[in-house]
């Protein structure tokens, strides 16, 4: 009998903890984040694209961050370049998205304020069927219900098994610079 009561108390306790957790769950979401990548070489036409509909979710309880960009959402100034990007380079029909899953290091939500703060992020980028570990520093700021996150990092086409044909190799930079700009809203 006492065991039964003890068990039900235990269950109640876990339910309560669960409820408290969900109240405390601090998720910040962005649906219209910007991601720009550039692999331009001097004297040649800029190789640059922008995606303004990038998703990001930040969980302040676990310090985890996840982001997703649809490849077809990247827009180039030159439509032919956009076509080649989709068809020959990232093969967006087969691999429609790029994702990032990672964690903010040495972080807790209390350190965020109106002033800019540099935070190290570590995680994996997945695109074109390949994964790549990255570590970069982002600048974060909190204002009311918003957290902004800005930063940049570099990747190589070969990190993701993307081959650049010899004929255009001179026109595309070896290193691709990726810039991110998110404004996450409390949910």
């Amino acid at each position, binding site marked *: 009998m006492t065991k039964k009561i003890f068990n039900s108390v235990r269950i109640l306790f876990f339910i309560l903890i669960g409820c408290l957790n969900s109240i405390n769950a601090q998720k910040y979401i962005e649906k219209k984040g910007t991601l720009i990548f550039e692999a331009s070489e001097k004297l040649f036409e800029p190789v640059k694209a922008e995606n303004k509909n990038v998703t990001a*979710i930040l969980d302040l309880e676990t310090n985890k961050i996840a982001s997703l960009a649809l490849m*077809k959402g990247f*827009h180039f100034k030159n439509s032919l370049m956009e076509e080649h990007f989709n068809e020959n380079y990232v093969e967006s029909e087969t691999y429609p998205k790029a994702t990032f899953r990672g964690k903010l290091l040495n972080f807790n939500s209390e350190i965020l304020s109106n002033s800019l703060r540099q935070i190290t992020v570590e995680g994996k980028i997945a695109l074109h069927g390949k994964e790549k570990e990255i570590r970069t520093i982002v600048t974060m700021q909190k204002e009311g219900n918003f957290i902004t996150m800005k930063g940049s990092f570099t990747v190589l086409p070969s990190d993701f098994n993307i081959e650049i044909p010899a004929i255009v190799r001179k026109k595309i930079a070896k290193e691709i610079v990726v810039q991110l700009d998110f404004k996450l809203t409390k949910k």
Partner: protein
Amino acid sequence: MKKRTKIITSIFVIAIAIFGVIFYQTFYASHRNIATEKPELSIVAKQLQNGYAENFEKANALYADKVIEVKGSLTAIETSSIVLNDAVQVDFLSNITLDIKVGENMTVKGRCVGYDDLLELVRLDQAIILTNK
């Protein structure tokens, strides 16, 4: 002789001009204009989301990069986008100026970009509102 040189020169100039136009049209073709493209199919928001959630490859082949017409009821209004039935995120090129309210039924047209499995939303971009009744 002089006449012949003139003819050859003009043929040469015309050939270069034609080549130039073809070159320009191939390498600097203008982007698709989604607003003027006819929708390839019409679908209900929830059905579009279910299609992606159940069989991603099949849905991707059916809808991705195509201009489609989507019907649904408005569940969220953001600065430059709306959400239909918590299933389809519709992004416009400019901010919303129309007077629309959550709960209204509407039909939009846009390019299906793909499926966002983080938020479980299908995404349309370069969209326009066709009817809001």
